[in-house]
């Protein structure tokens, strides 16, 4: 096996293949790889950003929720207070009403009693006069003795 023209042929072929690879093989494949790497990097960055966004949103939602809870608690508290106050007021009003009704009942009863007493007085006076008539056996002029009767009635 000796050195011959094959050497030169191989060298030329080598040069040609290197040129061909540099021109048509390496750039498109390498570009595709680099582009994909970029896409993947972008995707990873985007997903990271999305995760961060989600985290922020969650924190914000938590805050909102807490604020809402506080507000709701305040509202409930207020409502309770108001309810208590209302009940108290109503109770007081009820008491007052009752007092008033009782008072008016008393007044009525008193008036009735006075009226009945008056009636009774009149009757008693009438009975007394009738009794007195029988005792003295004569007509007493009720008209003439009305002052005595009045006096009696007043004394009863």
């Amino acid at each position, binding site marked *: 096996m000796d050195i011959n023209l*094959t050497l*030169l042929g191989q060298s030329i072929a080598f040069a040609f293949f*290197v040129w061909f*690879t540099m021109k048509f093989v*390496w750039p498109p494949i390498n*570009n595709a*790889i680099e582009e994909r790497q970029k896409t993947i990097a972008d995707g990873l960055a985007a997903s990271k950003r999305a995760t961060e966004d989600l985290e922020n949103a969650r924190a914000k939602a938590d805050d909102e929720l807490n604020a809402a809870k506080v507000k709701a608690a305040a509202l409930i508290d207020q409502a309770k207070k108001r309810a208590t106050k209302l009940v108290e007021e109503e109770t007081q009003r009820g008491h007052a009403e009752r007092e008033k009704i009782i008072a008016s009942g008393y007044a009525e009863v008193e008036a009735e009693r006075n009226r009945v007493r008056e009636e009774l007085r009149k009757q008693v006076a009438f009975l007394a006069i009738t009794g007195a008539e029988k005792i003295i056996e004569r007509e007493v002029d009720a008209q003439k003795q009305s002052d005595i009767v009045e006096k009696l009635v007043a004394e009863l």
Partner: protein
Amino acid sequence: MAVNVGALSVALILGFIFVFSFMLVGRKATTGVPGKFQCFVEIIIEFISTSVKETFHVKNKLIAPIALTIFMWIFLMNLMKLVPVDWLPAVFGMVGLLITPEAIKYDVSEYSFLEQVMAHPWSYLTIAPTTDINITMGMALGVFFLIIGYSIYFKGLGGFIKELSFTPFNHWALVPFNLVLELVTLISKPVSLGLRLFGNLYAGEVIFILIALVGLYQLPLHFAWAVFHILVIVLQAFLFMMLTIVYLSMAAEDH
């Protein structure tokens, strides 16, 4: 001067298979989800890209294609060693016997058919091109010119000559001595590249031929040696590529 048509044409066919298959991938390359062959090609490209970036620190768009060409081409040429050593030569000898029986210069009428086949010059086909020293030295010669080209491109012609003359001893009186040393260094690079590849592959091929001579027992032996050679094939291709990158980076960088 003669040309080893067999080795050179196999080398060229393999080279074209490499560039066209890769070019096809490059043309159809998608930046989305790649197909399986594209994945395979991209793995090789990535691997070579990494090797180049680790060793060659100057920005240069020629170095990576050089490395890719060397690796893939030598890998394919080495791969031909796994084709049984006398299979294609027998086929070609048979074809040659049918087409040009007169090419056998001596009397073979008493030979058996197979002996006639193997006597035909077409059966001298070298199926693994890297077992031919012309092929490996041809590659090394290409690398040699690249080394010189890179040196001149990055350092200028003056810088290159100065480097040859004033290293390792920076004194004008020692210029001839330096020149001898540096020229030996320079020339030893392609020689070692070419001879290493040739030596490894040729020795392996000789063993394959020896194994082929032992008769039926060759089958397990051949299998074992072929399995071992899977390693040698990739390793030698990688070595040639890596050393080329190293030599070129040495040529491109100041010491």
